[in-house]
């Protein structure tokens, strides 16, 4: 009888090229995604060693982190960003790597563009010099972020040295209530296990609540795996997955499609396979979640008050909480609902896909954002932008008083001039509320697109269910 295996184990085992005692496994990488910020030093390394890119056909580059969102011209970036973007053009041309550059109609945030083009497929190993590569795990692939040395390793050998991670089953039972989304599911997990809770593990998200999510929502869930410390996050592929991938430019076609889908159907975790760790979360009782602190684990249900450090028994955790509340200028016990908001950011690889924009626009239709609020809507890719414009979503955002931009990472990482001013409060659909992440001195509340829109309308943190 065959040994029962998890989804992770099936992919891992078929990608190990060499496994020598005393050394980490040599893991084959099916798809390597590249962007401007974490790759220049890797190409410099290749040049210094006289190496070529082993498989340019398994490598795809785009520009997203520091690109302008007010125009599609590199010249409008600051000098250093422009230099880095031009360096990526030079590197891709020299090493024969396909690049979706500023003028490409398919360009987008790397974790939005890959799935959109059908590059991301079940069963693959996928890496990128970006920690949110875990997003692609939504398709039943093993996808994780790597550093620049590892980018060089993959460019040169199409392989990585990896120690086998442990597995962690995150089982979501029940059905989400109206106004509660995949973003709230992942924020609830991280609040529960902490930002180091998944260190050394790969999450597999299972259960009926996951099965009923759209692909876009599954990507939101997998996207923030790293914020729970996980190396990757995965969801078993099913008909929802196959329907999403079918017909995309890089998806298999014709007879090859049927054969491939038959293989993909063998990937889900076998009955009886076990995980190193497990947790169960009942989504039926979840409320919209929001963060109050300076890491994604500092989150609560939106109706809850801000935690009191005095109630925290562990002294280091207490001082972390005090430090976070000091930075955020929030008082323990105070409600988050009704707190003033200066900026609302709808975008990032977490929540910038067409379904996110539709959900947000639906809630905003016929409403206006508050006078004191600046709202930025930044689609995840140029394809998302055009689709939203074809549906008239851009008009809803603009008429409500929001700014409608070109695709990019924008205010999630604040490298391109889209940033908070010191002291400002933002409700953001992105993935990190670290000190200064969205601009020096800026303060971030992470939440879902629905919570973001409701808060933009009222100018204060608002439970979106009051609008539904």
């Amino acid at each position, binding site marked *: 009888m065959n040994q029962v295996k998890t989804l992770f184990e099936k992919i891992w085992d*078929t990608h190990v090229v*060499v496994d020598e005692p*005393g*050394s980490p496994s*040599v893991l*084959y990488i*099916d798809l390597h995604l590249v962007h401007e*910020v*974490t790759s*220049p*030093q890797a190409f*410099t390394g290749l040049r210094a*060693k006289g190496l070529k890119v082993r498989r340019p056909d*398994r490598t795809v580059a785009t520009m997203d*982190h*520091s690109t302008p969102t007010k125009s599609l011209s590199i010249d409008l970036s600051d000098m250093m*960003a422009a*230099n*880095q973007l031009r*360096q990526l053009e030079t590197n891709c041309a020299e090493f024969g790597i396909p690049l979706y550059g500023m003028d490409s109609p398919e360009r987008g945030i790397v974790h939005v563009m890959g799935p959109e083009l059908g590059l991301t497929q079940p069963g693959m190993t996928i890496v990128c*010099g*970006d*920690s949110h590569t875990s997003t692609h795990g939504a398709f039943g692939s093993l996808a994780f*972020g*790597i*550093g*620049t*040395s*590892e980018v060089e*390793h993959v460019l*040169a*050998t*199409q*392989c*990585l*040295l990896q*120690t086998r*991670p442990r597995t962690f089953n995150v089982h979501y039972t029940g059905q989400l209530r109206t106004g509660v989304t995949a973003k709230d599911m992942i924020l609830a997990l991280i609040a529960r296990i902490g*930002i*180091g809770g998944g*260190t*050394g593990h790969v999450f597999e998200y299972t259960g009926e609540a996951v099965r009923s999510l759209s692909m876009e929502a599954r990507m939101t869930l997998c996207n923030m795996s*790293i*914020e729970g*410390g996980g*190396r990757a996050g995965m969801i078993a592929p099913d008909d929802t997955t196959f329907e999403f991938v079918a017909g995309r430019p890089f998806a298999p076609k014709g007879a090859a499609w049927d054969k491939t889908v038959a293989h993909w159907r063998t990937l889900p975790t076998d009955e009886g396979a076990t995980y190193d760790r497990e947790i169960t979360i009942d989504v039926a009782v979840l409320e919209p979640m929001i963060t109050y602190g300076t*890491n994604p684990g500092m989150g609560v249900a939106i109706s809850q008050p801000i935690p009191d450090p005095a109630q925290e028994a562990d002294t*280091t*955790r207490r001082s*972390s909480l005090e*430090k976070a509340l000091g930075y955020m200028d929030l008082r323990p016990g105070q409600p988050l609902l009704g707190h003033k908001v200066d900026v609302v950011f709808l975008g990032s690889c977490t929540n910038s896909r067409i379904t996110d924009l539709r959900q947000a626009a639906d809630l905003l239709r016929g409403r206006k954002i508050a006078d004191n609020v600046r709202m930025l809507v930044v689609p995840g890719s140029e394809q998302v932008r055009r689709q939203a414009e074809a549906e008239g979503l851009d008009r809803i955002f603009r008429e409500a008083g929001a700014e409608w931009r070109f695709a990019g990472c924008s205010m999630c*990482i*604040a*490298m391109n001039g889209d940033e908070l001013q010191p002291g400002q409060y933002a409700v953001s659909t992105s993935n*990190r509320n*670290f*000190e*200064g*992440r969205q601009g*020096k001195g800026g303060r971030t509340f992470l939440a879902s697109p629905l919570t973001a829109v409701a808060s933009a309308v009222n100018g204060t943190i608002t439970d979106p269910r009051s609008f539904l």
Partner: protein
Amino acid sequence: MQSFTTLTSTFIPVPFNDVDTDQIIPAEYLKVTSKDGLVEGLFQRWRYRPDGTPDPAFPLNQPEYQGAQILLAGDNFGCGSSREHAPWALQGWGFKAIISTSFADIFRNNALKNGLLPVAVDAETHEQLLEMSTESPQLQLTIDLATQMVTLPGGRTTTFPIDHFSKTCLLEGLDQLGYLLKQAERIAEYEQAMGK
């Protein structure tokens, strides 16, 4: 890669838990195309006050800690973004090792590939080192990689974990890419066999 065998040095405490790589080096410093000059951005948000002057309360700005090559960090150090600029910036300052109770996965990988040694110790040792570093910044400790041993000021010793492969690469100053390049033939065989 620079080799790491043994190191005796004073140590600087930055003992907050969950220090993310955005704090180690903020994103505005990531627009470079080389590994140089990143030290300017190291702990930028904490090293400098809003008016741009050094914050005297931050340990890296205090004269008694200058010259220390060991950072004494808090739990889950280096979480968040995969930016390798974090270890590069720490090395730019002169750090050769970081002691904590635990490290985030990607940071740990990145550090090891650059010859920056992550040393995970138990909570009690960590606490003791923290007390020593605040009370007597002139105290030195020794890290010996071959025996995987930390000798605390006063002579108490404790061990730390590291995988055999990374240890060998560090001791001999070997770039890990060399090992992968030697596998070229087996990689080609794998590609052929799997139809890749």
